[in-house]
């Protein structure tokens, strides 16, 4: 029995060694498995979004020979001319054999209602075109687009798809004549929201996000840094500062909708700021990101070694000079990283904006801080809830754009940290 004769230390180590190696391998394996699993989910998410969304970056267009009829286009009154009729006539001339009134209407619907605005822009920019016949690629209707992209299947009974056999035949006829093409979807990046999927774009929401984030950054960064510097460098350590610290940490964990309610009560009802404006959105998101920035800034101030402060004070610098000339510049990379991460969180936020009216249908691209605006995540939410099938791919495409922006911001944070951070 082992109890009878005590083992040497080496022997005891050797007995347990295999088990210890196994344990270490298991530990490593679990860690690796966790990372592989999370990467797999990420890949799955990205793949499904990309697979659904990439088609939205291309849009079906129809080549029309539009006769810019001087009888319809009065040079003195170009803004109110009937451009829709020009488009309708030119689609109908492509199908001379369609005579029945009802069918003619359906034929005219192959082109998007947005085609008329395209023609209008063209004529208003170049009035000398009037009288000529101009070949232009105009947007196709969203259902034609879905059909071309294969999102409306051919092999189901006619009653079950939004494109009838007759329409399918017309579309095939256009394809055969080379009058249909898939082109890069510029509308998606240039337009505001629309109820017609082919006319809907993310420009409005992107500008709204931009204005909102500018307000958030301009307010939350200086306030956050100032608060952190005071708490870290000047404030006495007592029960009050402890209380403040606990509260700041608490605020960082509060559900964001609460900040929305606060914003509704204070900014809209009390201060009478305009509803749905990116200014108010920015104010609400400032409240939300402040704790994050304060915590990150304090951490980076703490990491500046005391020797720097002592050296500065030692050669006769005042406390303010010490902080402004030496401590702050050294802590800045960490503070900026914190700010960017806070901004990235603010960019993805929808819940607090619901309360202040930024979950809204807004067609016009905002031009200032007080224009009604919406933001990217809200646009995604609104499109995801729309019945039209063409919005499915646009939703995914907007998600891709949002993810890219987030990636860029986080990459910037990593870059700043690596470039400027100093280790002691």
């Amino acid at each position, binding site marked *: 029995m082992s109890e009878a004769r005590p083992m040497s230390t080496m022997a005891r180590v050797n007995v347990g060694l295999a088990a210890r190696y196994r344990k270490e391998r298991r530990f490593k394996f679990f860690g690796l498995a966790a990372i592989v699993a999370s990467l797999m989910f990420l890949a799955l998410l990205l793949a499904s979004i990309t697979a659904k969304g990439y088609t939205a970056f291309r849009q079906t267009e129809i080549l029309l020979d539009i006769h810019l009829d001087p009888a319809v286009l009065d040079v003195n009154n170009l803004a109110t001319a009937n451009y829709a009729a020009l488009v309708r006539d030119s689609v109908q001339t492509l199908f001379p054999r369609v005579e029945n009134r009802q069918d003619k209407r359906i034929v005219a619907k192959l082109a998007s209602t947005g085609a008329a605005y395209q023609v209008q822009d063209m004529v208003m920019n170049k009035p000398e075109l009037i009288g000529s016949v101009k070949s232009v690629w105009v947007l196709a209707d969203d259902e034609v687009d879905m059909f071309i992209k294969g999102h409306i299947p051919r092999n189901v009974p006619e009653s079950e798809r939004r494109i009838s056999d007759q329409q399918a035949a017309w579309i095939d006829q256009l394809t055969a004549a080379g009058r249909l093409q898939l082109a890069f979807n510029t509308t998606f990046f240039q337009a505001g929201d629309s*109820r017609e999927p082919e006319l809907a774009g993310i420009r409005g929401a992107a500008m709204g996000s931009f204005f909102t984030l500018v307000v958030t950054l*301009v307010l939350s960064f200086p306030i956050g840094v100032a608060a952190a510097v005071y708490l870290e460098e000047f404030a006495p350590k007592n029960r009050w500062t402890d209380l403040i610290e606990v509260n700041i940490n608490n605020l960082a964990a509060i559900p964001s909708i609460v900040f929305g309610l606060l914003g509704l009560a204070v900014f809209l009802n009390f201060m009478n*700021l305009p509803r749905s404006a990116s200014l108010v959105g920015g104010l609400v998101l400032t409240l939300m990101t402040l704790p994050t920035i304060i915590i990150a800034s304090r951490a980076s101030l703490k990491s500046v070694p005391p020797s720097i402060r002592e050296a500065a004070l030692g050669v006769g610098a005042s406390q303010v000079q010490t902080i402004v000339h030496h401590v702050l510049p050294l802590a800045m990379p960490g503070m900026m990283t914190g700010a960017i991460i806070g901004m990235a969180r603010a960019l993805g936020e929808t819940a607090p904006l619901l309360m202040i009216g930024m979950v*809204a*249908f807004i*067609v016009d691209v905002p031009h200032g801080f007080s224009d009604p605006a919406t933001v990217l995540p809200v646009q995604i939410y609104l499109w995801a809830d*729309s019945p039209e099938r063409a919005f499915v791919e646009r939703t995914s495409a907007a998600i891709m754009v949002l993810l890219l922006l987030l990636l860029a911001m986080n990459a910037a944070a990593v870059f700043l940290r690596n470039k400027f951070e100093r280790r002691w």
Partner: protein
Amino acid sequence: MQKIARTLAAAALFAGSAASVQAADGRDYISIVGSSTVYPFSTAVAEQFGKTTKFKTPKIESTGTGGGFKLFCAGAGVDTPDIANASRAIKKSEIETCAKNGVTQIVEIKVGYDGIVLANSKKAEQMQLSRKDIFLALAKEVPSPEGGDQLVANPYKTWKDVNPTLPAEKIEVLGPPPTSGTRDAFVEMVMDHGCEEFAAIKALKSTDEKKFKAVCQTVREDGAYIEAGENDNLIVQKLEANPKSLGIFGFSFLDQNADKIQGSAIDGKAPDFEAIAEGKYPVSRPLFIYVKKDHVGKIPGIAEFLAEFTSDRAWGEQGYLAEKGLIPMPKDEQKAVAADAKALKALSGKE
């Protein structure tokens, strides 16, 4: 560093003051709030209106009917919304709130109908349901299957248990949560009716209306009815993945996804455009917009917006709203409503 901070703070203050000045001198666009069911229709009108007139495109928030009225009735000033979308008629209590806050002249405009459908995947068979079947399948408490007037916790597991002519599939219905207007309408139009087929419960209506409502409108919570959120697209996707379940949502989603899902016939009528328009399909509800009469003239374009909404090219049988899934009213009714809208005939306050 200090300089930068000072400049930034000054810029922020400036932006703030500029905005409050703007807020004081009023809006030049129409502000609309309310139901997410009416949202797709009023947005379509708003967009058309913005593109074809000299006015700015109205701003439309999707807040839900109740939330919309709350904002709408909050005051009479131009900082409150001009129009509320609603998927039900305004309640008496809401009119009172409005009146208390100075909103006394409200114009009600009925814009059309919306059907609510019970649908399943095309991979399964179309269901033939009666409202009584649906009540028995979804209510929390039902009359005992053994007979008698006693109410028992819902014992039915499969559709066959409810009605022997139905398939022996597990009851599984995906639908909106209680906060949704669609759910309110569904409960009122389907469950209440199914409920009234039982004499004992019907008798309750006159004696104890509260109890009647509790019995008829409480949906079971044992997993047969699954609250699937307000996103109807999500329900459609779930139905496709699980052909054995049914879903409850608005007609426009059935219309857009007719290659994937089919509507169940209710009381012998399948939900299609004609049946709903003619009022033969039993589960359809009117949609409304409510306008503050005092704002007409103060905010530019309200009268013109109403004219666009009530024009034939918008809400007509061939109009662009029909294409979005709005079921138009009969021609005569449309004419009457359009005339009232033009005259801005305010609610009398009785209802």
